[in-house]
């Protein structure tokens, strides 16, 4: 955990462990490379142990070098990732360069022995040249990916006190335009639903559907009855606001108008009213409310 007052200063202990991991990893790659060269010096293959006497025993030291080199890489790689992450971006990803270093170095050995500087009396050796090229490709292609990732992260530094990626429970902030585009791409029905809503808002579906038209005319009748001026409201306008608003009759009338507004909203929400129908009805109720005040 980094100190909040010094968010940009890594701890010496973490940096030293990262150093141990880097030194160990590089040591392993060096051992592998030297072991490989010593085997290639005697033709590229050797054997030890077993019940037979090998025609080409391995050079001294190759076996421990190869063993330590290959297995040590895993251990030092893990160590480097843990302490690299503690040191902070981008050091957590630094051990990944070990891959490119390993294949770059071993591929170089292949190229040197098979093509650039073959042993005495030997021409270009395809058996070394082909793996050499392959190893170099394996080294360089990930480097390109990592370079582009580092380029994308240039100048990025997590703000002091902000949670790290692995510690954060909140989803990342996604631009609204991108989210919308993705939603439409993932769910075509979302776009279709929006189109339907736009049509409904235009109010054109009423004329096409007889059942709906009948239902609406029933609603119209109910609305007409509801909107008829109540005696209380008429009395209020005639007698003056100050006295009339205090009567229970007046308050009851206002409440019923508010109830009507609420019912209209419900009907709109359930799709019984199109947008313009709702607006017309709502305006009528509001006008009556205004007349009362």
């Amino acid at each position: 955990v980094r100190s909040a007052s010094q968010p940009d200063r890594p701890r010496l202990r973490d940096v030293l462990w990262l150093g141990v991991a880097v030194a160990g990893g590089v040591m392993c790659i060096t051992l592998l490379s030297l072991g490989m060269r010593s085997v290639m010096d005697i033709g590229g293959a050797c054997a030890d142990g077993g019940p037979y006497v090998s025609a080409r025993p391995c050079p001294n030291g190759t076996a421990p070098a190869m063993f330590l080199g290959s297995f040590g890489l895993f251990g030092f790689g893990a160590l480097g990732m843990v302490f690299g992450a503690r040191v902070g971006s981008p050091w957590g990803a630094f051990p990944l360069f070990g891959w490119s270093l390993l294949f770059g170095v071993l591929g170089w050995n292949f190229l040197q022995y098979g093509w650039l500087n073959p042993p005495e009396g030997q021409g270009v050796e395809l058996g070394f040249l082909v793996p050499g090229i392959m190893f170099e490709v394996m080294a360089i292609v990930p480097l390109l990916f990592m370079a582009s990732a580092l380029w994308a992260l240039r100048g990025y530094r997590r703000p002091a006190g902000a949670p790290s990626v692995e510690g954060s429970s909140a989803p990342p902030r996604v631009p609204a335009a991108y989210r919308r585009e993705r939603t439409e791409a993932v769910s075509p029905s979302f776009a279709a639903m929006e189109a339907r809503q736009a049509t409904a808002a235009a109010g054109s579906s009423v004329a096409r559907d007889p059942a709906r038209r009948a239902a609406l005319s029933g609603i119209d009748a109910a609305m007409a009855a509801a909107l008829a001026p109540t005696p209380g409201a008429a009395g209020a306008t005639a007698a003056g606001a100050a006295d009339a608003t205090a009567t229970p009759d007046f308050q009851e009338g206002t409440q019923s108008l508010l109830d009507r507004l609420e019912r209209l909203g419900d009907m709109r929400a359930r799709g019984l009213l199109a947008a313009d129908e709702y607006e017309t009805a709502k305006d009528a109720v509001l006008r009556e409310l205004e007349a009362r005040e």
Partner: protein
Amino acid sequence: MTIPRALVPLIVLGAAALGVAAGIWLFGVFSGG
């Protein structure tokens, strides 16, 4: 104890150089040279 972030690349580079030296030395030890 904390250190300035600018020192991290230097320490890592130094460690890498140390690793090469250690690898060469260790291979010498293994091959009995």
